[in-house]
């Protein structure tokens, strides 16, 4: 059994947080419903899904080839490509570029990769102001928190909590009106857009065939981040490359309908490098940072590799019974919910994220809803096995759990021993129960019994009952 650590404690806090429970209930149900309606409109959804899965698995099996093709195209269009082995390498590049150009402020549109590599924390240390411009991210940044969902980073907050935050941090008059909250954000952020010399974005898809960087969004903040500043840096995980532009038709349909239930988002930006000399506005410089940060390690296992097919739609989070109860923050990792449970230990290690693979009831809803059919429950099982093996190899003494299983195997193999042992357990159980000592005896199992009623032993075993019925 896994040791009680961070996630477990967080679960307790999350479950007793009434406001959080209400916020989660309201928003996740809406998201799911919108997704279901939107998916039901597409008669060949499964076919699209299979196509996308095949494209992703193909690309991953020849990732070096497609990355090189992508790089050639980006460079041919006047962009520069930076290869970052680790998150730190990627962060260093952004910081060094900013320092070299004496940039004190940058505008940033939503990027989970930037969260993964803790870009903002380093920028802050270097006294470079990084302004999150997606409304949800902006709220989370103002609150000094981290996102709690792939798509709706401020999903854990109610509008009253946000109104309080805006009143406190921006000096805005308190208003629970979402229109006014949004208008304030537009006004404040517009100023930053107009004078920030650097824009940083994530990437949804990188098209190898055309060298296009595709950024999907609704608010227009990504469009502004790649249009007004003189420099655009796109941060992209190496697994985001797809072979052909024509594949985009399928991927956009799957991503957007799964994510928000829209048919398409307000904007899909296909960016081909910096401003051409004859164009009037746009960034003069374009940098694409290709980030590994543990991804190539995941590639090595042919089964686990599909983890990298994820297109970050967030549907598995919406549908997960665990995520629905505990929200994103309880996971204490960048990626949360089912995808976070499989991605986090693989990007880091079982030692660094010992609990993630266990934060699931293996109900299978995540695999069913996944638009690229990632077999999350099966991956979880494999990761649990890995984690256990690693632990067993580390442990110098025989664990109690192992000893218990060895003894139990002995007992199960011998019918007479089994009958005798269970009879004694039943008898002792009753004695302990009568003397209220059961809690004490069950201490080794207390993590199990704490949240569950301890069952009363049956007065007779099945064998005894059978014999009784035969006699009568």
């Amino acid at each position: 059994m896994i040791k009680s650590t961070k996630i477990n404690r967080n679960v307790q806090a999350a479950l007793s947080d009434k406001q959080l429970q209400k916020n989660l209930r309201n928003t996740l149900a809406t998201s799911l419903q919108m997704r279901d309606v939107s998916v039901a409109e597409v008669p060949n959804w499964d076919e699209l899904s299979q196509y996308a899965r095949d494209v992703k698995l193909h690309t991953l099996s020849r990732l070096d080839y497609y990355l090189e093709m992508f790089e050639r195209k980006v460079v041919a269009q006047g962009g520069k490509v930076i290869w970052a082995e680790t998150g730190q390498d990627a962060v260093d590049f952004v910081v060094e570029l900013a320092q070299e150009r004496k940039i004190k402020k940058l505008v940033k549109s939503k990027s989970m990769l930037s969260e993964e590599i803790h870009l903002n924390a380093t920028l802050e240390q270097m006294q470079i102001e990084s302004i999150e411009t997606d409304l949800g991210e902006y709220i989370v940044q103002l609150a000094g928190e981290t996102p709690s969902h792939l798509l709706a980073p401020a999903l854990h907050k109610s509008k009253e909590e946000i109104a309080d935050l805006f009143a406190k941090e921006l000096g805005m008059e308190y208003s629970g009106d979402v229109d006014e909250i949004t208008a304030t954000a537009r006004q404040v952020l517009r100023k930053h857009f107009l004078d920030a010399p650097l824009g940083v974005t994530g990437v949804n898809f990188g098209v190898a065939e055309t060298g296009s960087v595709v950024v999907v969004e609704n608010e227009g903040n990504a469009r502004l981040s790649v249009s007004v500043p003189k420099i655009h840096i796109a941060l992209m995980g190496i697994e985001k490359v797809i072979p052909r532009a024509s594949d985009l038709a399928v991927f956009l349909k799957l991503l957007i309908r799964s994510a928000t239930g829209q048919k398409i988002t307000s904007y899909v930006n296909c960016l081909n490098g910096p401003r051409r000399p004859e164009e009037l506005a746009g960034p003069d410089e374009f940098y694409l940072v290709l980030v590994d940060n543990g991804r190539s390690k995941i590639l090595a296992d042919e089964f686990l590799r599909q983890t990298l097919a994820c297109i970050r739609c967030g549907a598995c989070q919406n549908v997960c019974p665990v995520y629905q109860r505990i929200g994103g923050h309880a996971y204490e990792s960048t990626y949360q919910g089912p995808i976070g449970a499989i991605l986090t230990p693989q990007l880091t290690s079982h030692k660094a994220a010992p609990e993630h693979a266990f934060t699931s009831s293996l109900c299978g809803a995540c695999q069913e809803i996944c638009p690229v059919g990632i077999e999350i429950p099966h991956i979880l099982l494999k990761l649990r096995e890995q984690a256990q093996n690693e632990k067993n190899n580390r442990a110098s003494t025989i664990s109690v759990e192992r000893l218990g299983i060895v003894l139990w195997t002995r007992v199960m193999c011998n019918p007479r021993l089994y009958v005798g042992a269970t009879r004694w357990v039943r008898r002792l159980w009753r004695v302990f129960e009568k003397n209220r000592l059961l809690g004490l005896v069950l201490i080794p199992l207390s993590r199990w019994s704490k949240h569950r009623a301890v069952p009363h032993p049956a007065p007779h075993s099945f064998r005894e009952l059978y014999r009784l019925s035969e006699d009568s």
Partner: protein
Amino acid sequence: MNSRSILLNRIRLACAGADVHELPSQIPDFPCYSDPVAQFCQELEAAGGVFLDGRRSGKLAENLATVIRASDSTEIYWESQELFHRYGIPFSPSKTCHGVGDLLFYSHHPDQEVKFPLLLESRPYGKSELAASSLSVSPARCGIAETGTIVHEIVPGTGRLFSLLPPAQLILLSERDLIMNSTELFEHMLPEQRGSSLTLITGPSRTADVEKTLIIGVHGPKKMFVILLP
């Protein structure tokens, strides 16, 4: 070894020995419509955009007047002079030009005089000027019936800020350029694109980041109009 070769070697090592998963060649079917204009209109309006049919002669001026009223604009910023020729828009230079040389009157409609400055290639709009303006007009590379989307492409003589900073945007779309779904766009137009940016635009900017409440008008334009032309 530099980071590039280290990273590529890592990937090659990780993929070595394993089979190459086959790349599917046939894209699944995408929907087609018997009345693509009706489909386009329905989806655009569902996304919060305004559809105006300017296909009949004389309708364009009326539509322009509607857009100007609905966006509280006094001026229209045109993306390029080429638009007038491309869509056969008649115009005549204003008598009250104030010597700037870029103010024109649209005088096709009998009751409505529409004033707009015209982009001159020698004078690209500045970002603060655009941010303070009220309405931009740009052409669509194509329209997508399935989702009510227009595709805006950056070509020489235009820039990324133009249709982005003003609070309202108007797109002119020729019926000839209406396609059924996005497959044609991604199979042909994107690979052939020479400019630095191609954007799919569907309605005004929006967010649902606060309690999933839909709000129209965040960072991008708050209003979006499409006039369909022959």
